[in-house]
């Protein structure tokens, strides 16, 4: 079963990459783009048919490795079963 994970920096955390990208976009003429926040998209293939189980495993993977709980939020999406 495929599981998608979106990891973003928590709201108040400075995002130097986002900041630099926003600045570069502005220099390219994208004046309407006022904010850029950069996160990660992770796709897992989990060997189970149970969406609950898949979600649980993905959550553990995020807590232990994929996301930095001190600074980041993660959102788990199960495309077939959202």
């Amino acid at each position, binding site marked *: 079963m495929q599981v998608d994970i979106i990891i973003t920096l*928590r*709201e*108040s*955390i*400075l*995002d*130097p990459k986002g900041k630099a990208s926003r600045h570069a976009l502005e220099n390219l003429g994208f004046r309407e783009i006022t904010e850029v926040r950069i996160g990660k998209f992770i796709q897992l293939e989990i060997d189970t048919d149970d969406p609950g189980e898949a979600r649980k495993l993905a959550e553990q993977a995020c807590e232990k490795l994929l996301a*930095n709980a001190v*600074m980041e939020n993660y959102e788990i999406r199960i495309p077939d079963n959202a």
Partner: protein
Amino acid sequence: MPQLRHREPDITPELAREHGLTDDEFVKICDYLGRTPTFTELGVYSVMWSEHCSYKNSIAVLKTLPRTGPGLLVDAGEENAGLVDIGHGLACAFKIESHNHPSAVEPYQGAATGVGGIHRDIFTMGARPIASLNSLRFGSMSEPRVRYLLDGVVKGIADYGNSFGVPTVGGEIYFDKSYEGNPLVNAMSVGIVKQGETASAIAEGVGNPVLIVGASTGRDGIHGATFASEEISEASEAKRPSVQVGDPFTEKLLLEASLEALKTGAIVGIQDMGAAGISCSSSEMSAKSKTGMHIDLDKVPLRESDMSAYEILLSESQERMLIVAEKGREHEVMDVFAKWDLNAVVIGEVIDSGRVVYLRDGEVKADIPADSLVLGGGAPVYIRETAKPAYLEITGTTDLSPYIDVEDLQDTMLQLLKSPNIASKRWVYEQYDHMVRTNTVSGPGPSDAGVVRIKGTNKALAVATDCNGRYVYLNPRKGGQIAVAEAARNVVCAGGRPVAITNCLNFGNPYKPEVYWTFKEAVGGMGDACDMLQTPVTGGNVSFYNENPIGAIFPTPVIGMLGLIEDCEKHTTPAGFQSDGDEILYVGASRSGIDGSEYLAFIHGITAGDAPDMDLEFEKRLQKVVLEAIRDGMVASAHDLSDGGLAVALMEKAIFSDKGAQIRLDLPGQSATEQLFSEAQSGILLTVKPANLDALQLFLTEQEIPVHHLGTVGGDQLIIEEIAELPVSQLKDIYEWIIPEAVSQVQP
């Protein structure tokens, strides 16, 4: 938190307590103000009177340290960093600072912002950082969490330092269980400035504009108490205090812009923003000049527009500075910052009322006598209760005799080389750029101190950090003395004259009498050594509350020593063997006692005894005489004896050079175990060309420094007659692989 901007909690002694203020302190605040503080004022007092900003529990003790000397251009604590005359019309600004607690929570960013913060302290004085060092302490590497912290901290230091473009030229790492859960991350920066071009953290000239420059302000690092009020305590994710994130490229711009703006002459005063951000910089600058500031927080560039006065004042967003400019010339400053793509905004002006006044939404949110906030002014000063720790009775009377004369010394030597405290830290320092700017003469690794050329002169700086926390734990006073003496010895071995120190004092909770006793003793010991070696203290930093559930960390007063090499080409001295046929001399005190040694700790699992022996008066003579011998060109290499004693010093000299040696151990009196593994202080291994052997021995003897001819460099084995025959390649394998293997071990 839009609520917080318009609805503030009621001020009660309870809320003050949640802000870390005692009831007495709360009463004192009400006295200073003549009324109950506002919520914003309470927040400002709480950070300004925190240990970090006010040094309230340490300043009385710190004042006992020797803080003046011939070369010092500013007194300790007067400016952001110490400033030392290094000749040629140049001065060196240097300081060390801790970032322990942020690194325990988020190792990468904690360490990165530690590096950024200390560099800002240096360039805010107008000096360009030319070198950095790091002193790190971790728990045992068998713990996965420790490996995670180590990896994060080292990457954080490397990424920030390498991006910012300052070489990391030295430092040290120790591992001990006492640091588990509470790593120490101390970062040191060293910079150069022309005398007369230094900047000051002052706010003179009523009517002069106050500018905030650099990055925008966000909710970084605002202390947990912000969220203490009832209304907003629904513990949502986003309401937790935010980890500060470093942005080294912005810091690089800020460095160049600040130095360029200082050259315009339009800047009256400048201070970097670290802990307590705008509140700290504005009140300290005002208090120093006996002026005040009127600041409109609505004008501060914000990352999130709904921030309250409280949050803006307490934000610890990185890469920012506060500047007081000459009235009418502020545009010269703003133009420079605009050129570097950085904010530079006038947010207020200098006033003469002695108060700092902060407005938000057109309303006065805080109006405080600046002097009442700061160290040396109204901030509390405490001398805490002391009690000699009970453990000293046990460690001091432990019988070490079973370990003082053991069999199989060769195997013990090999085992000792496997201690992570001794093994090569190449895995760490190879992540750091130590050559950027190309002035590095000796980087981390095979030299007792980092050596950096001073461009345009034939001089160099030799810098080292040092502290053996185990020694300080076993005998705080002697341990404090040794930390200074050994840092100085490292500088001497590299060919430099020790000039002055900065220090980072890492201790447990000062409200525990045992911790405070240790603190006072250790600082006393540092003072003894600084007096004797004539290396005054130029400033530094105190970090208390370094504890984990088992107890306090080893008391760890890290010393950052600055030394000056008069002739970089001729005097810079390596640690490893140089040429086959060179003669090896042991110079210094007798190798007696295994107290507090790495041998006891690592081989036998025992932390006991006294701190190793040291006679400060002898130490001073030894350093002076060895430096003289180096300057006279008689010395081919020099390496001081420290962790692991003579055995490790010999093995290291061999490993550094891929050369063996033939040694006969016949130091008078002691057992072979002691001769090899004692960490008695005041010992140096020198090598000398055969042609200079007699002259050097004669010189040392004339100076009444004991000298023993141990043997000769050569071959591919380290041979100690009747004790060990060790192929250098085998030593090297062990030495180089211990740390990489420990780091990469997989969780079972």
